[in-house]
């Protein structure tokens, strides 16, 4: 029952968000064009790097390209779902968040889920088609089991991304600083354009255990490629549960210390 009403509200907010994008079609097209360039050149860059070297830490060019394509797909889904975090700062500064806290919705609804970004939808479709095309082209089509594992680990990665966004929202409540923190996450996330295994120890540890970009992006890609170990699966689920609990705790802590900016 609660879930149903939650979904109803999300659909209404999503419709509003879509209408908002449709109000300025030219700028929406320019944004999509930018995302398209970014996507195409990400693949081209990886292709060009592997033109210089045949393998990097045992990863071949086709594997690396599939990892890049999977990264882009998951990144677009995350951007679609949690985009409203990017506009949370003005809400905090104006004091409008007070009104959201009074509503019978989860307190994290406004900062994380209230404004899905529909500009990512065309990209998501395109990225799914490109991923399927390249999997067939490279003869890397996953088995049904691997596909199921990919969906499972991918969903797990999105839950972890939710936790990370929630931690950023919590931090922003305490400091009202948010823009650069989101950009740090984006910069670190971009590291997963290649398999995070190829980085040196220090950077790899940060990506695996501090800001777990590896779980969000690299492990689902490994599931598609059938190179995910049982240890990787366990680590993925254990880390997500731990991170989710910690970020929920941090969120509650930050709400306790929230003081309306306008009052």
């Amino acid at each position, binding site marked *: 029952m609660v879930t149903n009403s939650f979904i109803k509200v999300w659909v209404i907010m999503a419709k509003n968000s879509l209408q908002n994008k449709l109000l*300025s079609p*030219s*700028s*929406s097209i*320019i*944004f999509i*064009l*930018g995302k398209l*360039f*970014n996507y195409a*050149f990400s693949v*081209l*860059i990886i292709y*060009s*790097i592997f*033109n*210089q*070297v045949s393998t*990097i*830490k045992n990863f071949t060019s086709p594997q690396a390209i599939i990892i890049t394509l999977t990264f882009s797909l998951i990144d677009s889904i995350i951007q679609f779902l949690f985009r409203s975090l990017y506009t949370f700062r003005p809400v905090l500064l104006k004091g409008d968040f007070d009104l959201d806290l009074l509503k019978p919705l989860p307190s994290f609804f406004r900062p994380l889920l209230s404004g899905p970004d529909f500009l990512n939808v065309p990209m998501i479709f395109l990225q799914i088609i490109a991923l399927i095309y390249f999997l067939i082209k490279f003869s890397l089509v996953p088995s049904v089991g691997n596909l199921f594992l990919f969906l499972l680990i991918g969903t797990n990665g999105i839950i972890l991304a939710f936790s990370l966004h929630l931690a950023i929202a919590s931090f922003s409540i305490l*400091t009202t*600083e948010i*823009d*650069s*923190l989101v*950009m*740090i996450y984006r*910069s*670190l996330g*971009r*590291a997963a354009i*290649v398999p995070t295994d*190829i*980085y*040196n120890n220090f*950077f790899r540890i940060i990506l695996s255990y501090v800001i777990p970009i590896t779980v969000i992006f690299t492990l689902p890609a490994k599931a598609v490629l059938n190179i995910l170990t049982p240890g990787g699966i366990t680590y993925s689920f254990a880390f997500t549960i731990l991170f989710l609990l910690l970020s929920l705790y941090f969120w509650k802590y930050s709400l306790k210390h929230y003081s309306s900016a306008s009052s």
Partner: protein
Amino acid sequence: MVKYIRIAINTLQEYFVYRVNFFFGRLQVFIFFVMFFSLWSAVSAGRSSLGVYSIPQIYSYFVVGYIIKAFVFTTRTADIGGDIQNGNFSTLLIKPISTLKYYFSRDIIDKLFNLFFMFWEFILILLLFKPELAMPSLFNFIAFILFLFLSIISFFFYSLVISFIAFWSEDAWSSRFLFGVVFITIFSGQYIPLDFLPPVIGKILDYTPYPYMFYYPLKVWLGQIDQNMIYLRLLNGSLICIFFYFLSQFMWLKGKQKYQSYGN
């Protein structure tokens, strides 16, 4: 002159108000560097060269590139689009100051402030990564400085042009995202040296301003452009600078006539 110094000081004070945001902003730039440096370290591991680059040259590409980014791509002209759209621009127009000089003053202080932090970050990079760097000859170093100067001026006017699009468009950030973020980072060679891309793309990019803002200054530093070509590239770079200067002036004049103040 005094009022523009005052504007610069006020801008500096803004940074001290939003200290955490500035710190995270610099941290983001540093992380971006660490990511690409780590990526290229992994690519070059166990190899003596990559394409036309020796390993010290590939390290230099990204380490010296870090300095270029701080000099060239730090700007406050990106604020103009937002100011036009939210109506803040009106208050600037009625003040007894030159609007362009106002943004130029903010731009200068933004660059100086970022350069100050970049200097310490650069030392940290040298200490942490101990990269073996390729050093230029005296001639190439002087040419590099000239290129850098041209890049700074070109990007300033290029960024003004992007911001002035807001006079005609309903959203300032879409054009900034496409031309000021995506095109600049991809086509200027910040992700990958452009000669690693398929030759046809390199040839197309040669007719755009982007390689002149990042890639060619680095090629000069690395001594990979011969002397006659350096003169030609400098001439091209100067023409790009002049083109964007006149384009920005034209758009400024036309944009002011088109400007409609709304907002608060």
